[in-house]
Each structure stands twice: as C-alpha cells, then as structure tokens.
C-alpha cells in the first residue's frame, strides 16, 4: 500500500540545525527536499520551542514579511513568515518578545555565496507556550540528539558506514541512511561538540544549574532599553547644548559630538554610532549639511 506520509517534525537543537550545509533534493517529482544535519537528521519539517527574542517586519504593513529569532539552549533559530503564512504572520505581528513560543515549520536554506549556507525555518505555526512546555521540548530534542549520537558512535566503529549493519543493531533505517549521507558530506565530524551540547542542554533544565527565566530575560532587556534611552538623551543634550552655546544654524560636526559624548560617558564608538542611527531613524536627528548633526523640532 502506498501511503502519503506526512513529513515528521524533527526535534533538533538550533546549533545542529544551523551547522547543516547539506541539502538533498527529492529524487521524484514533488517529493520533498531535506536539510541533512551533521548527525544525519533529514529535516523537511521541524518542531521547536524556545524564546522569541526579536521580531521584525521587513515587508510592509500591506504585505508583511516577518523575521524572528527563537533561541534554545544551544543557539538561535531564524524564523520567517510571509504572505504564504498569513495566520502565522498575524500571530507573530502581535507577539511582544521575549516570550516562550512553539514553532512548527519547514526547513529552508539560502546560499548568498559559495561559502555561506544559511538555514532558517519557514513557520507553519507559532504559538505562545509555557516554560514547562519549553523544558519538555528540551527533553524531546535531547532524546532525539542522543539517538543520533548513538548511531554516529556505532557507525564510527565501522570501516565503512553500512545502513544494513546499523539497522541490524536496532537503529531506525531513516536515521541510519541519514547518517550515511551526512558522513559522506561533512568531513571530520566532531561528535564531542554534540555530546557536550547534549549534556549542556540537559543541565539547562536542572534546578542546580541556573538558567535565565523569562523575567530575567525581560529585566536584562529592560536594562538594555534603559541604557539605550540614557545614551540617546545624552547625545541630544550634547548637541542641543553646543547648538545653543555656539548659536549653530547647521548643526554640530559628527566628530565633535562623538568626542564630547565619549568624554561624558563610558561608551564605545560602535555604541555611539548605533545611538545616532537610532535617533535618525526615529526622526529626532538629521543631517542639514554633510557630516553635521542637528536636532529636529
């Protein structure tokens, strides 16, 4: 009997997902393509639970294209939802990070140039969940990773990776095949890294190892927001003081502002640049002549 089997939703940690550089196109017409991870998970669909830390509409209000970051204990998933996922896009548009979210989606890859291979999730579903659900997901992802590591360890004892022998050892055929394909593509695979990742992610859910709660993430974020605001008002103050003192019509030179701000506050050049850019995009600063900054209003 030929069955239409729905693609399974893999539970895979962000780091293994993002380490992937092998895409296998389906051999038959309309058959799905897979992202093969270094440990041989053949991912068409993925299920993850993590913290939504950022979301941004890079489209326009009419045709939104949402990009979001969802982090797990090992790294960050890049999640997208556009016009083909209108419900997800709407839901994501109403979410205020940070939040625990569950995401189901298709693996997607992008190769801007030969050396860069970017992976992301095209979301089919996103939902706010609880911390408990996130912890349960970590257990599922760890169980799945542990099984792939066991395949890898057994396979490394073989002269040549044999799917048949792995199946005889009791491993799932799909896992064994995936590992063989991965083994042919990725060179000098370091299992240690993934073993450490497994242990770290398991410790993450134990009470004796402190992890950040959503409140702490919130606090940290609020702290960052506060500093951003402080820096912004400092820059504004510096410019307006100089404008007033020297009766400048065409604003203050960029370098002078920078110098003055860095004198008053422990701030890096990057931070200064970012603050100025934020003020400009918020419509609080403009450049009346090249290289000069002037306050609007």
């Amino acid at each position: 009997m030929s069955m239409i089997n729905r693609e399974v939703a893999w539970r895979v940690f962000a780091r293994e997902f993002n380490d992937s550089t092998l895409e296998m196109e389906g051999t038959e017409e309309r058959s799905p393509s897979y992202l093969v991870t270094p440990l041989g998970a053949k991912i068409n669909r993925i299920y993850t639970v993590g913290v939504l830390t950022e979301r941004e509409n890079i489209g326009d209000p009419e045709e939104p294209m949402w990009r979001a970051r969802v982090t797990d204990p090992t790294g960050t998933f890049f999640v997208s939802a556009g016009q083909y996922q209108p419900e997800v896009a709407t839901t994501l548009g109403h979410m205020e990070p940070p939040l625990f979210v569950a995401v189901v989606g298709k693996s997607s890859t992008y190769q801007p140039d030969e050396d860069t291979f970017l992976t992301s999730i095209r979301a089919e579903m996103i939902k706010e969940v609880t911390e408990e659900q996130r912890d349960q997901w970590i257990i599922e992802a760890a169980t799945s990773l542990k099984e792939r590591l066991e395949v890898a360890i057994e396979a490394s004892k073989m002269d040549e990776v044999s799917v048949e022998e792995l199946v005889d050892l009791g491993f799932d055929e799909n896992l064994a095949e995936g590992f063989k394909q991965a083994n042919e593509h990725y060179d000098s695979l370091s299992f240690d890294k993934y073993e450490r990742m497994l242990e770290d992610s398991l410790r993450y859910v134990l009470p004796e190892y402190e992890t950040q709660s959503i409140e702490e993430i919130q606090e940290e974020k609020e702290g960052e927001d506060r500093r951003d605001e402080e820096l912004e008002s400092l820059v504004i103050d510096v410019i307006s003081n100089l404008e007033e003192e020297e009766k400048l019509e065409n604003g203050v030179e960029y370098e002078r502002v920078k110098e003055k701000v860095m004198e008053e506050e422990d701030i890096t050049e990057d931070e200064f640049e970012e603050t100025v850019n934020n003020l400009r995009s918020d419509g609080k600063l403009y450049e009346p002549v090249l290289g000069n900054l002037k306050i609007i209003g």
Partner: protein
Amino acid sequence: MEENEELAPHIEDINRALNEKLSEEQIEEELRTYTDRYGVPLGSAKRSIVKKYEGDPQDLYVSTEKAIDDIGGDEQGLNLKCRIVSINEKEIEVDDEPKQIWYGILGDDTGTIPFTLWEAKPIELEKGDTVKIENAYANTWNDEPQVNIGSKASVKEIENDEVPQFERETQKLDLADIRENMQNLDVTARVTSIERKMVNTQDDEEKELFSGIMADETGKAQFSAWHDFGMEEGDVLRVKGGYVRSWRGIPQYSFDETAEVEFLDDEELPPAEELDEVSVYSISDLAKRGGAVDAIVDAVMIDIKSGSGLIFRCPECRRVVQKGACRVHGKVDGEADLRVKGILDDGTGALTVIINRELTEDILGYDLEEAMEKAKDEMNQSVIQDALEEKLIAQPLRVKGNITSDEYGLMLVADEVEYKTIDVEEEARKMLDEVRV
C-alpha cells in the same frame, strides 16, 4: 542435479511430444546437457529439445512445477502445484474503476508464499483447494517473494493427492510483530475481551464468530475465531495454526477449527491491567505495522485542521456541512457536533487524530450547548476551534485508540485523551547518567 526418478516423467513427456523419434536414453542425455551443463531451467530445456527435433512444444503435457521454497524473486512462466492456504477478496481501484482481486497464501510441502490473483477468478477457489497454476510470475514486495496470477496465467483444480499433505512448522510470534498475510503462527496471549456474533459468509451461510482483543507482553491484537473453542474473557491461550488478516491496516489474528487451542495457567501472563500498560507505540512503528488496536501514542499536537471545533453534520450521511450544504445532499439543516481533527507528531512520525464530541467537551470544559452559545455570542463558529488550538497545540498528549491506515496515512480514532506530564528533571538526570557512562 535432477534424480532419474524426477526426470522420468519429463523424459516420457518429451518422448510423447516427439512421437518417440528419440530413445529415452538420448532424451535423457540431451536433457542433462541442457540442465546440468548449461544450467537451463527444466521447462525451457524441454521446449528447446522438442523444437530442436521438430516437435511442437505445445504437445508437452507434464509441466515443470517449481517448489514454493525455490521461488526467489523475479520469475516469469512460473508453474506451481500447490494448495490454497488462505484466500481473501479485496477491491482496488484501477483507472478510477473498482476492480475485484484476490489475495492469500499458497503452500506446498516445501513452504508457503503470498499470492495475488489479478484477474477474475477462472474457477471458484476456496481455502484448502489443490490447484495447478501455470504461467504465473513472481516478484518481490517488501523484500518477500510473491506469486502473481495475471491474465496470461491459468488455474486448474487438481486432485488433492497431487500435492503431498504438509504441515508447516508453526512460527512462535509476539503480538507486536504480527503482520498482514502471516500464517501458521503460534501465539500465546490473554483474551481481554470477547464477543460472539453471527456473520454471513461469502456463500451466504450463517457462521458463528468469536471476536475480541488479545494481549501479550508486547502488544495487543484483534482476533477472530471461526469456531467455538469455549474461550472466555481472561483466559490465557496458546493458539497454534492461526493466520493474519488485515482490516484497514489493523492486523487481526484469525483461526478456525484447524487451529490448536490450548488453555494455559493464568500465571503464564501478567494480569490484563498490566498488559494494557505495554501498548505504547512510536508512530514510526505504527507506520511499519500498518495499524494497531487499542494502542497508546505519546505525541505532541502540532496542528489542528479546519473542520474542528463546532461543526454541523448532514442529518442524512453525517458528512460535515460546509456553508450550509452537504457535498451529497445539498442544502440541509445541519446538526451541531464537536470534534477535533488534528496532527499528532512524536518526532518519529505523524498521524491524523480524530477526537469525538464527548472527549472534545472534556478538553473544552464545557458541552456542545455552551459551545453553541459562545459561538452565537461571538457571531463566529471558529471561536471553538481557536479555544481548542489554545488548549492542545504544542501540548504533549497521551492518546489511546484504534489506529488504521489507508492511502492518506495513519489515522487514530481516540478513545481517551490526556495531557501528558513529563518529569523533566528526572528525565534529564536519567539521560545525563547514560551519557556519562
């Protein structure tokens, strides 16, 4: 190679086809040259010899039957003398037309093999008939050879004694491992439920059927006993000589009066409640099995399909009414109902789950009437689906029910649904201990 005794009827056959043109010794020598020296199969060798001496191969009468155990893989022009161990009807679709086919098991004293009869039955075949099959072909399906009886083949009933009586060694098997078309099994299990029914057989005969569920330490299966063995709920039985038939992917252990049923001590198997615990399956195992009865699946609900929540059904056919109209009966006054049609995924596979009104009410925490009130207040039928998504999506669940399969994949009709709580800390410590070793 062939013993004289076995070649003798073929030598005689060639002799007759060639009108005794050659001596028996000459024929034997030719035959051995073809078969022993050049490895030509006996059937082809006979044809070639007859042609070589200007005879007509059509005049050959003794066909070269193949022993079932010797059927390897892809073979054409297959001739067999065998007994029908089991035969079942099945309707398939060819070019959108329904077509009747038959499938079952053939056996001789060397072994058994599944078969499919693709064309209208040339004769009325029944279980136990001894037949001669000519010009069939063999192929492999799921790595197992099987015989195909196509339009070019013929099937003739022959005398019973043309195939020696055979008794196959029974195969001891756990219930978790039973698969469609297996036969001659030896299964030890506890009857966990049983009921007596009268059913009409193909010949319009009324027959007594005892059906129910049996369980061992590996799983459960439906059974059908076509004979009154005096079985009762709770009995621990050893049933030798049963076979497996499938209904929508659920393998069923079937046996009749030819089976040997032995009543064992109660202590041979754990009590029914304990056996109930074991039937937790991964979805990939269920896909391999094709289905299961009374099985437990631990998985996460990752999608809820449209047509869930508050729905309206056609009073005639129970189909879901869309925009006030039934697909078959047109505009109807739909009857309200509640259900969930969703996707459960456990990381090894995915299946469709159907949750009925009663269980859906439990999940919602209110009943159909209240659901209709809520929908009316909101002027929106989909608020109930939204509420279900809120409660179920990304939620680990333990669902129990029967699992069937068809061309759309696996489907679980839920009898019980509960939220599954995972002791995260305990699981994490257990895994850390295993990793450190």
